[in-house]
């Protein structure tokens, strides 16, 4: 990748153009159902286990931090409320994003990149088939669906992990933990988190597809493309997360 400012602008432009192409191609029939199911299954299979394994310690860390913080402040009765809030609002979309980009996105990028340098993509275009419609749209949709489902998984595992560490290891009271569950968190937090996961899934898949479809320069080019796709996705995801969180606090009235 060139480091000139015009080069960076051009790449952003192409990426954005492809995102628009994907959006425009989504309603086009026939929908590639087979490819969608295969991809959803594939992305789920490479992300579920690492997601569960990451979200347990993640929930534990949050529980530990909040446990000691609430003890210092003398607000132990709120430890459940705070830890649910933290897991639900921030931890789960971020964990989902990292895994969708790190496990799902890299797989998509490597797959499409390998096809690109073997001229399979060119062959497909010459056969009159639009790779955006045939390959990218099913992947983007699959990634979005799996991200939403993963977000649910992370929330459950994270909250359960938090409960375990707070109650068993920090001698919190189960009753207080459970009773304060909904004092701060509300249902709209869950919706917002799912919306974030949906957007993160789309961004990860679009960036991975873009980098894969523009890979060039042989096998090394595919490696570079995967590397860049992870870096770009992470940057975009954290910026998007910030913007969506800021908007959320403006739009949804908070409790308490």
């Amino acid at each position, binding site marked *: 990748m060139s480091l000139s400012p015009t080069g960076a602008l051009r790449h952003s432009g192409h990426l954005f153009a492809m995102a628009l192409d994907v959006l425009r191609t989504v309603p086009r029939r026939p929908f590639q159902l087979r490819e969608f199911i295969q991809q959803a299954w594939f992305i789920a299979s490479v992300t579920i286990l690492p997601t569960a394994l990451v979200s347990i310690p993640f929930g534990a860390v949050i529980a530990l931090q909040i446990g000691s913080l609430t003890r210092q402040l003398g607000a132990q009765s709120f430890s459940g409320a705070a830890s649910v809030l933290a897991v639900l609002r921030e931890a789960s979309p971020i964990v989902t994003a990292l895994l969708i980009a790190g496990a799902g996105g890299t797989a998509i990028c490597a797959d499409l990149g390998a*096809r690109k340098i073997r*001229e399979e993509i*060119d*062959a497909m*275009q*010459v*056969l*009159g*088939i639009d790779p955006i419609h*045939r390959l990218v749209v099913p992947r983007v949709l699959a990634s979005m669906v799996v991200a939403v489902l993963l977000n649910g998984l992370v929330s459950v595992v994270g909250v359960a992990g938090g409960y375990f560490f707070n109650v068993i290891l920090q001698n919190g009271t189960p009753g207080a933990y459970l009773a304060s569950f909904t004092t701060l968190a509300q249902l709209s937090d869950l919706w917002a988190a799912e919306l974030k996961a949906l957007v993160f899934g789309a961004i990860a898949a679009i960036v991975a597809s873009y980098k894969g479809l523009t890979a060039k320069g042989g096998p090394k080019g595919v490696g570079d493309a995967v590397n860049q796709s992870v870096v770009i996705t992470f940057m975009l995801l954290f910026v998007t997360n910030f913007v969506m969180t800021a908007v959320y606090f403006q739009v949804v009235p908070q409790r308490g």
Partner: protein
Amino acid sequence: MGVEICVEGLTKSFGHQVIWQDVSLTLPAGEVSVLLGPSGTGKSVFLKTLVGLLKPDRGSVRVAGRDITTLREHELYEVRKLFGVLFQDGALFGSMNLYDNIAFPLREHTRKSESEIRRIVLEKMDMVGLIGAEEKLPGEISGGMRKRAGLARALVLDPEVILFDEPDSGLDPVRVAYLNQLIVDLNAQIDATFLIVTHDIASARQVPDNIGLLFRRELVMFGPREKLLTSDEPVVRQFLNGRMQGPIGMAEEKDAAQVEQELAQLGDSARAETPGSRELTPRLLPGPGITRPPRWQAIARREAEPHRRREVADA
């Protein structure tokens, strides 16, 4: 059948590097043309520009009256259905077996029933001699088989234009001979317009109606086979004879003085060209089992004439 492709003033560059400029040629409908050129002269880029995979900087490519370079994306996909392209390594889909690869365009573009698809796919596989390899994955077969499978896939939609990107690279001479025969047979059977990009001189001498030569970012010459094979243009002579003396150097080109000197030396050694190199190699004709359309009957008659005359002279 077959459509004419009219290329005018085509120029392509990547960044500041000009690949070729001002290329104009017409591929006559139904004829076989060969585009020759040293490695790295942008022959593959030219093919990709013809099917609209790459956009040229200037110029036009008219296929069946429509300019490829100005078409919108969805119109381009329509026009591309006229094309069959054989990529260098076959470009088969690695995740599908050969049968599914060849059936792919039919399943995507037609509403044919599975049994009809099966009939067409097996017919094309028979044509390229791949019967029995339906279940193989592209990774499990040799380069030659991948090329033939790629060809079968390119043929399956009955294209009007078939483009071959180095069909003979990486194949042994015997397989190249079979492939050349296959190309000629195909042309007699389906009557499409063929463009073969290659640097194999032997194939270029036997197979085509027209030959073009790309060198130094330009189309040096394009015309009927006879014209190029008997041409006195130094670049053409050097390339067709595969010798070191001449304008083409290891790193693309040489300086003029050196070329002069080399050509003078070559002249001293009494027209050092191998005897008969300027003679017309006999054309490859469709095999005995193929019914020849009028165009090929005429070619066969023309081919037969000089030989007969020589035999008479010998007697």
